[in-house]
């Protein structure tokens, strides 16, 4: 049984003009539990607030109802007022009699009657309110960035720059990601390595940044501010602390037939390798699948040549447990596999390449030393056909339904650079649409067409057929002239769709972060919270959230970093006390709630219950982590037994409001 005070605000004439405030205060004074009722010109004024405070003290109020403007306006104000008078702030309820009553009704009788009903509903709700206290949790002032591409690097640098420690976990032996494989970048055509490698070096040199290269996240526990992450540091069979990166071993290793994945298999490397000259950390790695020593114990050349004594064939995977306050996902993207696109003959002809392979074929550090040569015979190609949207915007099921966003621009870049360097080469680009909505993007594309004479053809490539003479017959349709084309090409470059890295899906499960059907991470709000995951403390950087080019990625990386910095700069996190709570006596442990929770706030534990006759029953029951729960209430309805309820918006409270309104 509460002792409730009702305070009806005039809001000058905003309310009082169409609502008889005195009548409202009078009527509500007869409601059960109401021991004080008053009306005043401006409840939010200092005098109005004092009226409330005095009444709380004088009448030992346990609940307060304020009939005023929208709670979105002054709920916080009045909660503070109550708190100042020693009442729990969550014992205050607002009846919205301005925006949802006086302002929309002209008839004073109707307005007054409605205001009374809204007040009555608030009184009925307050009867069932309970004092709520927001939980607090400490914040571990350290961030984890998963993925060491440009997104991860930029996020880590920005976080470190603000003074926080940050770890990067990268599954490859070096950080740098896709951007290390690129030659030039659109639309400015500056060299990718020139702008990326300094950042990689910055990472290596910043003492607040620790790089776990050749490592993967294995387990994530905890919640915002308090994550505990287990990182698996894969055995590279080289002691990182001893290896000087001299590269001697990579020259002496007798196993030469290892496909060089950095060059996408276009050439080979040794079993012990450093992916590329500017790798960070610049440490050799033994590829256990090819190393003779590791496979059959016969070799040991690298150990013999290593003056630093860094080779360690007995090295095993290490598991490191670290605590973090925030986690940034920057797992990036990959081009899709083109096996299901038989019409382009990708698997049949080495001269049909993906754009990323083309990137390596034109890179000075690539397999051809930067000279564009056909992979099949090493000859200079004279006709090159670029095919756009290979697997993008594809609703047939073979590819991806979305636009991969970057292909139009990098294809324009490839076409332009090819024409620039080899003016004797004819370049055709087949496209569905050319999409250039970025700064200087359309200008760039037009230069390719107008200045460099690239043949842009709106149309689809139907078939690429390898010919006996080593050329490729490209059959295509020109949709504008509406004719069938047959082009004899030396090379075909496919703009393969990009997709999230395969590691993202299991990672999302570990993080309880949600993903969309394409395995891109979902953001907390598509417009207003684009770099946060719905799961508190998890942030998104780069292409793991959706296809992005470099400037966008860097921008998002910085944004994610600033969100992390904002979080880590707090000493304690104060939760929203209106969170879900599970009554373990009623809980069936059925997991329905967990399935609808967008935040991963619900976990289960096997709990012992004392039963009659001194027996013990063990039941699986749900537990809500109040630091993670955002209070949406999805779980409360998914729960069939009513075990799950939402504090501040409990089943009983809402039903009491319903009852009061329908009375």
């Amino acid at each position: 049984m509460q002792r409730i005070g009702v305070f009806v605000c005039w809001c000058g004439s905003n309310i009082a003009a169409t609502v008889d405030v005195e009548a409202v205060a009078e009527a509500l004074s007869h409601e059960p539990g109401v021991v004080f009722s008053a009306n005043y010109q401006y409840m939010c004024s200092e005098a109005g607030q004092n009226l409330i405070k005095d009444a709380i003290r004088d009448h030992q109020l346990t609940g307060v109802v304020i009939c005023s403007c929208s709670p979105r306006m002054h709920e916080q104000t009045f909660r503070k007022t109550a708190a100042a008078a020693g009442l729990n702030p969550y014992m205050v309820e607002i009846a919205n009699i301005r925006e949802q009553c006086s302002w929309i009704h002209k008839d004073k009788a109707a307005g007054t009657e409605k205001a009374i009903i809204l007040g009555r509903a608030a009184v009925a709700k307050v009867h069932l309110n309970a004092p709520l206290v927001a939980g607090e949790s400490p914040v571990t002032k350290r961030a984890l960035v998963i993925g060491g591409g440009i997104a991860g690097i930029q996020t880590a640098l920005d976080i470190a720059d603000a003074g926080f420690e940050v770890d990067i976990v990268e599954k490859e032996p070096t950080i740098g990601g896709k951007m290390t494989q690129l030659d030039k970048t659109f639309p400015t055509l500056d060299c990718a390595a020139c702008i990326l490698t300094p950042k990689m070096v910055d990472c290596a040199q910043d003492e607040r940044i620790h790089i776990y290269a050749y490592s993967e996240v294995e387990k994530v526990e905890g919640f915002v501010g308090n994550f505990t992450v287990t990182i698996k540091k894969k055995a590279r069979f080289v002691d990182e602390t001893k290896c000087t990166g001299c590269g001697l071993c990579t020259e002496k290793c007798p196993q030469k037939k290892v496909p060089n994945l950095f060059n996408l298999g276009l050439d080979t490397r040794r079993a012990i390798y450093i992916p590329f000259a500017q790798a960070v950390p610049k440490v050799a790695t033994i590829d256990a699948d090819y190393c003779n020593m590791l496979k059959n114990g016969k070799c040991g050349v690298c150990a013999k040549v290593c003056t630093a004594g860094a080779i360690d064939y007995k090295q095993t995977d290490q598991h490191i447990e670290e605590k973090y306050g925030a986690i940034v996902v920057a797992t990036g993207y990959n081009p899709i596999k083109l096996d299901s696109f038989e019409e382009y003959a990708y698997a049949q002809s080495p001269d049909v390449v993906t754009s990323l392979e083309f990137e390596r074929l034109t890179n000075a550090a690539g397999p051809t030393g930067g000279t564009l040569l056909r992979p099949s015979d090493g000859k200079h190609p004279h006709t090159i056909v670029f095919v756009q949207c290979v697997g993008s915007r594809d609703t047939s099921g073979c590819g991806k339904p979305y636009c991969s966003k970057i292909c139009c621009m990098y294809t324009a870049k490839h076409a332009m650079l090819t024409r620039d360097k080899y003016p004797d080469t004819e370049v055709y680009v087949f496209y569905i649409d050319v999409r250039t909505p970025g700064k200087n993007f359309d200008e760039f594309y037009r230069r390719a067409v107008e200045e460099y004479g690239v043949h842009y053809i709106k149309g689809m490539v139907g078939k690429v057929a390898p010919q006996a003479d080593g050329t490729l017959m490209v059959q295509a349709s020109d949709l504008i002239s509406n004719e069938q084309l047959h082009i004899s090409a030396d090379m075909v470059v496919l703009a393969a769709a990009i997709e999230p890295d395969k590691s993202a899906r299991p990672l999302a499960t570990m993080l309880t972060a949600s993903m969309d059907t394409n395995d891109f991470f979902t953001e907390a709000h598509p417009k207003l919270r684009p770099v946060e995951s719905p799961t508190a403390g998890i942030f998104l950087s780069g292409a793991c959230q959706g296809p992005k080019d470099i400037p966008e990625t860097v921008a998002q990386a910085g944004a994610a970093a600033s969100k992390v910095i904002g979080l880590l700069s707090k000493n304690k996190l104060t939760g929203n006390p209106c969170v879900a709570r599970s009554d373990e006596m009623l809980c069936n442990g059925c997991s329905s709630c967990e399935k609808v929770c967008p935040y991963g706030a619900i976990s289960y534990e096997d709990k012992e219950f004392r039963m009659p006759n001194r027996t013990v029953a063990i039941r699986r029951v749900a537990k809500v982590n109040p630091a993670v729960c955002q209070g949406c209430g999805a779980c409360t309805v998914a729960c069939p037994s009513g075990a799950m309820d939402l504090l501040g918006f409990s089943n009983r409270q809402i039903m009491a409001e319903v009852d009061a309104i329908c009375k």
Partner: protein
Amino acid sequence: MQVNEGFKPTIVAFCCNWCSYAGADLAGTNRLQYPADVKIIRVPCSCRVNPLFILRAFQRGADGVILCGCHPGDCHYTTGNYYARRRMTLLFSMLDYLGIERERTRVEWVSAAEGVKFAATMNDFVSTVTALGENKRLEDLRCKAN
């Protein structure tokens, strides 16, 4: 449809805090009129609305119940309204199956910017329910005023 002149229906509107309740506030700020028969209950998200609440409203004398939430895809909690949409679709279909007038229940997505839509929706819903008249099929006679 017949018009029930003089009949004042009782309408309960559940509005999610982030979009529809704000949309209702905007309707108020813009002084857009809709009948006083509509009484709004604020819930954090449309997914907080339990079918029990809707039945409870009918039991206690509501003539119509409307649930308003963020547009699909815009949920403050990302996915709440998707679940609400499934739940309400099935519930409404069941009510219809039991012969309860389907027009007495409705779901509308109203954003915080759609004050005009909010008022229009309420005007339309009130007139629909008014035309239907008193809720007889899902009433609890004990709760009738006497």
